[in-house]
């Protein structure tokens, strides 16, 4: 078995393990990738059309959402309320989540935001960075944009 096949096998195993907390009722937050486009000349003008894709791990279940503590905020130079989402499994045959496909589908003038639905309400975030330093997962770092509902 080649290196790529091995990597994909490890990704599949890791991805299945990421579903276990959800099976025990420990994943209550849901994450949606929101693409926005407008009918007007400039972003924000005219009527907006939104596309929403839920970010999931194995079995279509929500990923882990962590609130960063004060030390992580300070070291990462991030504002209060920033989140880290993941681990998300990169694509492998039969699974994983391909973020690049979503980015490639967006065109000039469209917007990309992330909505996190928590028990306390819905919140909108801007994607700050993607940590891709692991072969079996990546993490999203989100900065708060505003609260969308109570």
């Amino acid at each position, binding site marked *: 078995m080649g290196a790529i096949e091995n990597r994909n096998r490890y990704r599949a195993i890791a991805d299945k393990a990421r579903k276990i907390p959800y099976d025990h009722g420990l994943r209550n937050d849901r994450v949606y990738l929101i693409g926005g486009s407008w009918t*007007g000349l400039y*972003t924000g*003008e005219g009527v907006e059309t939104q596309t929403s894709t839920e970010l999931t791990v194995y079995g279509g279940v929500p990923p882990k959402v962590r609130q960063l503590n004060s030390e992580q905020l300070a070291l990462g*130079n991030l504002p209060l309320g920033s989140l880290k989402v993941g681990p998300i499994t990169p694509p492998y045959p039969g699974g994983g989540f391909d973020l690049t496909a979503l980015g490639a589908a967006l065109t000039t*003038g469209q917007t990309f*935001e992330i909505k996190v639905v928590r028990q306390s309400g819905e919140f909108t975030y*801007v*994607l*700050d960075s993607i940590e891709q330093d692991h072969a079996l997962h990546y993490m999203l770092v989100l900065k708060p*944009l505003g609260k969308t509902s109570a």
Partner: protein
Amino acid sequence: MPSINQTFGSTSFPLIGADVAVTKSFADPLRDTLLAMIVAATNAEFGTEDGSQWFIVREGTSLATKLPVNDSFPSLPTEPILKSRVNDFPIIFLDRLGSGAFEGLEEGESDGMEGDSDACEWAVTWCLGPLRVGEAHKFNAAIKMIFPRLVRLTFEDRCHPAYNDGAIPFGPGGIPLGSITVREYDAAEIPVGEDKQLYYGVSVQFRTVEHSEDNSTGIPFLGANHSIRVGGREGVVSGILDLNTDFPRKG
């Protein structure tokens, strides 16, 4: 019910719903006109054809398929816009800075117009995006020297042949604009966000003066109460004269 019946620069009171029915955004015609003009002028001056300076310089760089201006947005280049909007570099941002001064004209800005004036500060930013070191050097003079001068010459001429066939869009029948002065520029790596990702670009600050004038027709006079008082440092003596016009009766 709207009660102001006056034009102030390109802001026309009363605010009519039909004016924003298509864009569903509050309008700033002066901003949109200046943005469209500088986009057209920048593309025209740097060149959009083989053999132009832009086409020769861009070869082999990450901007090899790009025009001098590929995208524009009437706003300031804030972090949320740079991170959540899909921007096609090079991009021009243009907007009011949000600061200004009523009746705050500087020497030489008076053009004899009557009425209130609003001196408004603006910035136009030409952002080439993240560039490699060698690429940044290629575009260095365009950022630090050519573009600021291009903005000054275009705005202070109030027109450019590449925009609107060279017709001046300001003045009677067009966008009201008292004066426009290009003041200073700041060419630098633009730090984006807390991680200070560097986007190369230049921001040129300028200032406009817009005047107000009464609209001749519009909302009928509905009546008013005036109370004239006199006073000084010690206080106000009220009730010297009260005037009440008749308000139209309902029904």
